[in-house]
């Protein structure tokens, strides 16, 4: 039996609910990064040897090797987050467990240059340090 306006009771129930289905994202915490969400990269420079396995494995060629003083072969990777597709093949290709993808997903910048995470290395020190990509770019 067909009749018009079948959806009326459900619509009226929705209208008088207190909380609607919309998440007002910047003002409410919206996405909860679960474990395993693929975000920006972190490189442990004391384990990296510059073997270029990540550069070969990257599908959109977003990794570039730049000269470095802390690695064995004299090179370390720098990742262009504008080209990166966050697939995680670089993390799998790294044999020395140096490159990981973290939960940090709020990445935006005002120009293309800001998408390349390039931090200058400090001079050689005894204690290890991480190449932190978590700078605020918004």
């Amino acid at each position: 039996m067909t009749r018009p306006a079948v959806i009326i009771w459900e619509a009226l129930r929705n209208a008088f609910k207190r909380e609607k289905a919309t998440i007002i994202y910047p003002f409410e915490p919206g996405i909860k990064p679960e474990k395993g969400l693929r975000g920006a990269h972190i490189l442990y420079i004391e384990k990296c040897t510059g073997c270029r396995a990540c550069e070969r494995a990257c599908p959109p060629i977003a990794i570039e090797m730049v000269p470095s003083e802390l690695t064995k072969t004299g090179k370390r990777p720098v990742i262009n987050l504008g080209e990166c597709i966050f697939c995680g093949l670089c993390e799998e290709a790294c044999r020395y467990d140096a490159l990981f993808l973290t939960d940090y997903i709020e990445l935006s910048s005002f120009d293309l240059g800001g998408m390349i995470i390039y931090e200058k290395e400090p001079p050689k020190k005894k204690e290890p340090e991480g190449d932190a990509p978590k700078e605020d770019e918004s």
Partner: protein
Amino acid sequence: MSKKKIKVASPQTGCSACMPNTMQIPLGPQHPALKEPTHFLLEVQGEVVVNATPRIGYVHRGIEKLAETKTYSQNLTLVERVCGICSHVHSVSLANAVETALGIEGFEVPKRAQYIRTIVLELERVHSHILWLGIAAHEIGFDTLFMLSWRDRELTMDILEEISGNRVNYAINEIGGTRRDLSQTQIDRMLKYMDITEERINRYKDICLKEDTIRMRTQGIGILLPSKARELCAVGPTARASNVKVDVRYDDPYSAYDDLRDIFTVVTYDTNDVFSRVVVRIIETIEAVKYIKWLLKNLPEGPVFAKPPRKVPEAHVLSRTEPPRGELIHYLWSNNTDKPYRLKITTPTLANIFSVAEMLRGDYIADTTISLASIDPCFSCEDRMITIVNNDRRKPKIETWSESQLRRYSKEWYANKGWKK
């Protein structure tokens, strides 16, 4: 404020290759109803469409050529980006092709990996069909159903994000298995969300079958007779809605569909119009939820990944799968290296385009967009290598442009408009 003078184009009448006494209206590349560009040249008499000529190729991106320069592992992520909605199917199809080629030397994918791939395939089918239901409701002006069904699609997207890390383009596949495993908390949450989704989809089925205005708008429109469907090689729900029983998951099972064969049903409906396509897709969604629950309860133990050899022996492989839209074919020609020699992709929308041209004949102009939307078009999947032939006698038949010609043309065009670089 400067005033622009814009010439309004007058429609041409009586083109030499078209039917006489008709006005030509373009269902053009720019239209608010189309999500991706395509072009149909409609010839109308009054308000009735007499003939429709399709023209495709606006979203050609050169993926097949690019696939020859990347290794198979990188190609899985490239091929996933052919389409946004049916992305996992492309990756499974290519992985199946490569694993079949590797299977010549005795390589086998573990069973648990096949089950996980099938679970993600069916989840993708659920989310794609609910997306289509919302879009079709928006095309006929029923925005409430659009908003409510997309709200319920968010449950499926949350599950997919939790399993694979991303809402589209999951990258959960790898040649030789999958990259991630399912934990017990994930399985429990998936079962709970699938129960909620099933209840909501049953509610939408009630609404679509009982609502007067939806029936008035979708019955009797876009008729595709079964004989015509077979002749024009329609695939997927478009063919199944015309009572043609064709489904790759049943005829030619891949991944874990062998084990599902006992509870699998091919869903058909026989009124040959837009309404039957709506019904077929909703019932397919309910069936997909049923298969997901069965697969989750019977998940075998074991590893999820087996490391494949790097070089793939020489083989010609044809792999067929069933995305939510129809039948997808990947043809792979591998020589004995780690990059493919030739990869060809044929998508279901390309097979269904001529059925659309057939459906549009005899209907009113107002119904063209809902008829087009009823085959679930995904034009970004569709554009592979094509040749455009110009029937206008004033120009030569086929034109090919080299890159330097294109650059010169674009510079001249922008210089003529007075725009600075």
